[in-house]
């Protein structure tokens, strides 16, 4: 079987993503319309009459059939316009481009932290399975999975920000203005999300590494007289890297979802807070815009992970 060119592969994958984007935005749009509560009531103000609310629906085009409204939104998106908030009139693209870097920075910090702690833990545990190191790692990993991120976040704020005053308790700073300040603000939320990631990486890595190390070819390598270190780094980790990439892509998606809660705890104006505000106020262009962005990010992350997997493991047919 001849291998297809990477360009065609990527192009094909992106084409496949189109129906996913359509379906996801349509379902979310439908959900927003199905749940009770109505932005017309918010738009009409505190002392509105029924007649005024009906009038508002007309003025803002909210009385049009459901499919027409979705179609109008989609038509705008195709022309590269995510439209604007019904309530405040801010361009959704503007809101997203301001919020996205804040969320991205937290996720990147969380991912880096999860990897630099999780990978050594997993490797050490796998080298001497069932030893005390392994047991400790297992315990820490179980804790990491079990502890809710928002709880850890509050404890971190109470101890590190309020008591020790080392890091800011709330808010975000722009990375382009001051990278150091931006990282200082994103560090605690990053740690709060990283705990789960660290545990997941350590556990998964330990499992797959154990499997590789107990396989026959590793016994052969031992017999050849290769040192444990070389076996581990040259053969072991290369073989588990496919698993690792998959774990990372799943983690990124999970971490993106976790920001919804974490951003509320730290008052970070990111994608999570944006979608919560949009959903509460039934400001559907905002919700649609964020969902659209998230879907694209998730698809891209999965695509990159797949490409990396294929690069390290020729057996994987794209």
């Amino acid at each position, binding site marked *: 079987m001849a291998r297809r060119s990477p360009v065609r592969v990527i192009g094909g994958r992106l084409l496949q993503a189109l129906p996913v984007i359509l379906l996801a935005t349509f379902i979310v749009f439908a959900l927003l319309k199905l749940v009770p509560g109505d932005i017309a009531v918010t738009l009409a103000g505190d002392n509105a009459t029924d007649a*005024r609310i009906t009038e508002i629906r007309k003025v803002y085009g909210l009385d049009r059939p459901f499919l027409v409204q979705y179609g109008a939104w989609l038509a705008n998106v195709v022309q590269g316009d995510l439209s604007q908030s019904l309530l405040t009139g801010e361009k959704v693209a503007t809101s997203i481009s301001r*919020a996205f870097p804040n969320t991205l920075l937290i996720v990147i910090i969380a991912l880096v932290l999860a990897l630099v702690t999780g990978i050594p833990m997993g490797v050490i545990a796998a080298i001497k399975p069932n030893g005390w190191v392994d047991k400790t790692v297992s315990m820490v990993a179980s804790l990491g999975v079990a502890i809710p991120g928002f709880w850890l976040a509050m404890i971190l704020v109470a101890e590190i920000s309020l008591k020790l005053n080392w890091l800011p308790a*709330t808010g975000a700073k722009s990375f382009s203005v001051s990278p150091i300040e931006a990282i200082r603000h994103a560090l605690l939320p990053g740690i709060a999300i990283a705990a789960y990631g660290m545990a997941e990486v350590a556990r998964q890595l330990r499992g797959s590494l154990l499997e590789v190390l107990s396989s026959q070819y590793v016994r052969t390598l031992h017999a050849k007289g290769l040192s444990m270190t070389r076996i581990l780094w040259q053969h072991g980790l290369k073989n588990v890297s496919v698993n690792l990439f998959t774990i990372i892509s799943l983690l990124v998606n999970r971490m993106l979802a976790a920001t919804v809660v974490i951003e509320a705890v730290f*008052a970070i104006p990111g994608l999570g807070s944006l979608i919560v505000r949009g959903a509460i106020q039934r400001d559907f262009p905002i919700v649609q815009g964020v969902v659209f962005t998230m879907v694209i990010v998730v698809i891209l992350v999965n695509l990159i992970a797949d490409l990396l997997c294929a690069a390290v493991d020729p057996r994987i047919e794209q």
Partner: protein
Amino acid sequence: MAQTTRREVMALISGALAGVTLGGEAFAQATPKRGGTLRISAPANPSSLDPATGGAGSDHAFLFTMYDTLTEWDFETLKPKPGLAESWSFSDPTTLVLNIRSGVSFHDGTPLDAEAVKFNLERNKSDPKSNIKADLAAMDSVAVTGPMQVTLKLNTPDAALPGILSDRAGMMVSPAALKASSAGNVTRTPVGAGAYVFVSWADGEKIVVKRHEKYWKPNRPYPDGIEFSIIPELTTGARSVTAGQNDLIYQLPPRQKAIVERVSSVKVFNGPTLYVFQIFLNWAKPPFDNLKVRQAFNFAVDRESFVKAALAGLAEPAYMNLPKAHWAYDKSVAALYPYDPDKARKLLAEAGFKEGSVIEIVGYNDQDSVQRQEILIEQFRKVGMNIKFLNAPIAEASAAFFGAEKRGSGILAAWTGRPDPSLTYSLMFTKDAYYNGGRAPVPTELDEAIKASRASEDVEVRRKAFSTVQRLVMENAFVLPLAFQFELVAMNKKVQGYRPNLLGKPKYDDVWLES
């Protein structure tokens, strides 16, 4: 600065018998100083920064910094006083003449004259996107009767207008800015004549304003600017103040008071407001279509313990829709429903109410709301009423009760006050009002009384008219008022001159920062 300690301050506040706090001036001994940026944690993104197209009560905290109003309210009693209009008078009951202060200009340099006022009032009255048409329903036309004078022709006597002009309807927007905008509004580009000039608004994140150098009030404002960080999670907002990232947070829930007070750099102010927790009743359907059940409902609640248990004591028990400090408060009406469980049982028996029958009340599903519900459930159980709360998020719950669905027989919610009480009553207790959930008719004499409350501008006459209105509302028991929530504001000790107000919507007129 050798200042009174927080304990003394709190003693001062709780000692104010009328329930009105003395505000910042009583203990700010130093001379106000210019400079610095006031950093505020705000609980909600505004719905719009255009006074006419916005709708949320939480917008005022931003709007008041950028827009001055034709009249202003007195912080303690909410009586209207001169603002951009230096005086006003009713030449007859349907003609209101406003004399505009001279020498005032908008932030963009446009002069604020009679033409500008006429332009704004007409826009507020007739723009399709205006949410304040109803406020100006009594106004037929505006005429410029002098370079600095406008005359409002009314279709019915409306003594509430001066009060109404201290709210959204009286916020003056630069006509030049409105005309320049393609959408015909200044939702994102506000230009007013207020103490601060708009700088930027990042949705859900930050609003920045800076001092209006040509502001008409001498020496005001003191700070160079204000930065609002929008932090919907109030616990997080309070933390931003205790950690020193913000200087001030308003609308704190009572349970936060003890927590923020533990921090020595923070002081807490509180005072009564018009914000009243109440159960709106649907008197078009059972069981509240029966007057005796509604009255029993009012006798069954021990408001004093409700305030202690649900609101940490930081509230005034409510027996009518105005608190003690308000100019139109009536002691005798407030005495109509003392806590009297026996009376409640008796009324229920007379009404043929079957003991233990379930009454469905709509509620909100947040932590504080549920706590309030639990206390009420217990109190009603004691008189044989079995309350079941149908909980949902705020938007859903209110739409379900006040809108077309007519879910439940009542809703445990709140009423934010209006600068003139006649609005409060006409928005809740007239037949077609949105906040009359059942859209059920009210007695003609109540309609008449509400009209009468707007007929005269004489405060004594109006006070009597409101007594009648409020007496009719409470004798008919159209509502179950529970408690007026105190305004709770926590701030860094370097913030000086803050004064709570009865409306409960913060104004920062005299605030300055110690360096």
